[in-house]
């Protein structure tokens, strides 16, 4: 397994090229091109702000402006969910490569995760613009933890992506199942409602068990809430767990690797 991991590093050039290709190809031929990476989250934000400030407004004092609060969670969630959706189909749609070219297959789901991470980064300027607009500069000290949060999410997402992509080759149901699970997961995570809401705290244990709770809350604390980063312990614990998940996922992927060429 470690040999394979080092091989992954050897192939970083390929991963880079594929991520670049993914990004280039996605908007090739569209009029706005890369601007879609900004416009997509912006439009999403507009929809959610309309719904949650006008239609069913959330008036909790500490989460105003609410649109900004939601955006801190929605942006990483979009990265997470589209990564998994794309990764789960990546081996199947990349079947040509797996069948015809000697090629470390794990690159494909990882490229899905990384390409979506780039989209996430491209969405950040929008977030910054809103932070400036609402005059809510985050604490400089907290901001140190932003890259850590991103890293934890990356490892966590990559682990899940490996598992899902490998199993989806043999069990195509996973892709359909995943779409539904992600919808449920989104609403089960404190993204469009604050973690501190009393109704939420009633189910604290359940929320604690949801890994994305800790990511979402971390982003919110780092970017939105002032004051100390109270969720740090949870984040670090999730980081350790994610590293374990990734190792396990890689092991599983490795075990199933030889079956891909025949099954896709």
């Amino acid at each position, binding site marked *: 397994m470690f040999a394979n991991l080092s091989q992954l590093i050897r192939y970083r050039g390929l991963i880079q090229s594929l991520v670049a*290709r993914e990004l280039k190809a996605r908007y090739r031929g569209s009029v706005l091109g890369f601007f879609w990476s900004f416009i997509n989250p912006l439009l999403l934000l507009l929809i959610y702000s309309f719904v949650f400030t006008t239609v069913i407004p959330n008036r909790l004092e500490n989460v105003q402006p609410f649109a900004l609060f939601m955006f801190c969670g929605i942006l990483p969630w979009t990265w997470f969910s589209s990564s998994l959706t794309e990764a789960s189909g990546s081996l199947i749609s990349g079947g040509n490569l797996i*069948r*015809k070219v000697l090629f470390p297959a794990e690159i494909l789901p990882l490229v899905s995760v990384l390409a979506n991470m780039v989209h996430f980064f491209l969405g950040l300027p929008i977030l910054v613009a809103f932070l400036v607009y609402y005059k809510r500069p985050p604490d400089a000290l907290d901001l140190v933890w932003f890259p850590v949060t991103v890293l934890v999410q990356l490892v966590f997402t990559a682990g899940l992506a490996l598992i899902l992509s490998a199993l989806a080759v043999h069990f195509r149901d996973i892709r359909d199942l995943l779409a539904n699970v992600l919808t449920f997961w989104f609403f089960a995570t404190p993204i469009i409602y604050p973690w501190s809401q009393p109704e939420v705290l009633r189910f604290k244990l359940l929320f604690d068990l949801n890994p994305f709770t800790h990511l979402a809350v971390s982003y919110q604390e780092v970017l939105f809430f002032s004051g100390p980063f109270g969720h740090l312990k949870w984040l670090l614990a999730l980081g350790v767990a994610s590293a374990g998940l990734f190792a396990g996922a890689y092991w599983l992927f490795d075990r199933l690797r030889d*079956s891909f060429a025949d099954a896709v």
Partner: protein
Amino acid sequence: MTPAIELANVSKIYRRYGGRQFATLKSALLQRSVLRGLQPSETFPALKDVSFSVPKGSTYGVIGRNGSGKSTALKLVAGITKPTSGTVLVDGRISALIELGAGFHPEISGGENVFINGVMLGLTKREIEQRFDAIVDFAELKEFIDAPVKTYSSGMYMRLGFAVAIHVDPDVLLVDEVLAVGDAGFTHKCLDKFAEFRRRGKTILLVTHSLNLVERFCDEALWLDGGHASAHGDPRRVVDAYLTKVEEGEEVLLATTTARAVEIARPRAAAGTTIPLDPSANMLQATEGRSSTSSEGPKRASDMFGAIEGRWGSREVEITDVVLLGRDGEPSFVFHSGDAMSVRLKVRANPPTDDFVFGIGLFNADGVCCYGTNTYLEEMNPDRLAGEAEATFAIHSLDLVEGTYKLDVAVHKRDGYPYDYHRLLYTFRVKSRLHDVGIYRPSHHWTFSPNVRFKPEEA
């Protein structure tokens, strides 16, 4: 010399109905493949216990019919798929020309795809930069290299794929029937490139249907037949063995075709009333010479072919059996150009008759009558034919070019009244190592003045 590629007792079994490889999530995690629990009827062995080794620096050809396991063998060598049992060892960097341009993304430019494809095949960015111009030149795509690959023609696409793969500079090159890429000029360039590889002591494993190529190029060859290694060794010997087998297969096919045609024709004849009203539909009458001029001859012949295969006649003299015999006197359906061939007719005359003509006609696949004759044209005067009899038409040297031919046989009266007419019921094939063209091959040879010289034939 240490082998560059070595396969030892390799088998590869696929599941026949393309179902899932694992029945449940648990079995997948435990890697309990369903293959194990399957009956032999539910699996498909693509390769069965195949062993061969390719010495370093040699060119090795793999031949065989479609579905004989050639590509599976190549994929195993490439490491793309794993053997069900046995071991595959490869020494050195591999480049597989299996699916050209497999990793190309249609939306981005040819140049960008060269980079990504190159990295996929194991080159570093710098190596690709160094080779980029050579790749583009080789692919002959200089002016299109900035256009998205989706705008390429399939030939351009394949050429670019080929150019990248060949510039990976592997120790072991795997080639799967990719020389059909591009036009004759490009094919030539590819062959030159292979020759250069050989000179530099690289190993080439070539899967192809071009037997010619195997004979010219390969140091050794392997013939796969239904997943078994049927023969390996000297390319000429292997190719000959393969061709013999192919002929056997053709024999069976032609025998079935003929048997079916005869079978279908029979009941119509049994009715006994299908004597054609138009006498010109009777080929042998047409070739009876006196009335047919050279200008209308060929036209009639093609008209003839418009007439479908069939059988008619009064059956007063019945052709009961028609056999084509080869050089050795054995029944056959495949002949080599220049071989002897005989057509043996068995007939039954009931009642006896003193008016009969035996006729024969050879047609090629285009419906052109290559030759037609009968005993009347050859001025044989019928005297008596009674009971069971045999007539053999012997061709000393079958000087026809390669192709599929059909045969007419007939017995009729001198005035054309048909006793039993078998139209195009019998099919046979003529094989030839040469690819000369035309309707027939006159026995010939060339002579030259001493200042015209040819290279001696390659050994």
